[in-house]
């Protein structure tokens, strides 16, 4: 069901650098209907002691995009589904800063569930600021299953 090169586990892969602008943050906040002034209003952010607007907690999804890396080959006839996510926050993401992202495959396994065989893929993305300090870690759990079982 899942094909994996054995040396891929826990190998950190650079995903690139990402400049975050106030417009990126505004686009994300407005798309999800979160009009917290800390995300939209420079003056409100400054009043709270921040140098500029900060990003909503799940903004790192904008950085992640479709970078489901490192890639794992799923055999034809199977499909993937988000099973869960974990976010660990160490600092805010600020407008005007450039961040680096790194991906890692943490765990891959197969098991038999109630509805038949399924696979689990756990990936991690770390977002670091320009000094190399980790700002947020996103851990995602994906389930691999047959698409025959309609949901």
């Amino acid at each position, binding site marked *: 069901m899942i094909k994996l090169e054995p040396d891929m586990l826990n190998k950190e892969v650079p995903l690139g650098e990402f400049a975050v602008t106030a417009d990126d943050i505004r686009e994300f906040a407005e798309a*999800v209907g979160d009009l917290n002034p800390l995300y939209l209003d420079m003056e409100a952010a400054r*009043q709270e002691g921040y140098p500029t607007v900060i990003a909503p907690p799940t903004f790192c999804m904008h950085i992640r995009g479709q970078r489901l890396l490192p890639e794992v080959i799923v055999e034809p006839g199977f499909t993937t589904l988000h099973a869960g996510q974990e976010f660990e926050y160490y600092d805010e993401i600020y407008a005007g800063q450039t961040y680096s992202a790194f991906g890692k495959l943490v765990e891959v396994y197969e098991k038999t569930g109630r509805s038949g065989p399924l696979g689990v893929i756990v990936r991690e993305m770390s977002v670091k600021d320009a000094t190399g300090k980790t700002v947020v870690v996103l851990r995602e759990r994906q389930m691999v299953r047959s698409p025959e079982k309609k949901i």
Partner: protein
Amino acid sequence: MSKIIPKSFDDIDIGDEIGPVTKVPTSEVVIRYAKAARITDQRFIDPERARQTGFSQPIVPGPLNATFLAQIVIDHFPGWRLKNFQVSFRTPVKHGDTLNLWGNVTEKSGDETDGSATIHCDVVVENQHGDRAIVGTVILGPRRRAL
């Protein structure tokens, strides 16, 4: 502009309720989110692609529903920030589902004066049929001011 008044640690008790808040992720909301989150997977938008991947119709990306949860928690605790946020996606959410989001405080520890205060919460997203779409936990700490 009115200054944000932080919620005092002393005013937060175990058992305090967050929400409920209702959200309806329509197709328009999903399309806007997919653009903002740079999602290209068409199963969230295209009915045919959704069927090919095992869904009877396009579904709402789980991270969008998680985003709604993070939002209601942040709104409920002004002056606090997320330290850890975990969710499990239990039931796919379809476009236009009516979601009820809520949570409650399960634990508090530490001290507000030295910045060690933490608040633990359980959070839930339930659809209009009473199915739990997401269950999760949140840990909050006081906002660290970047002065």
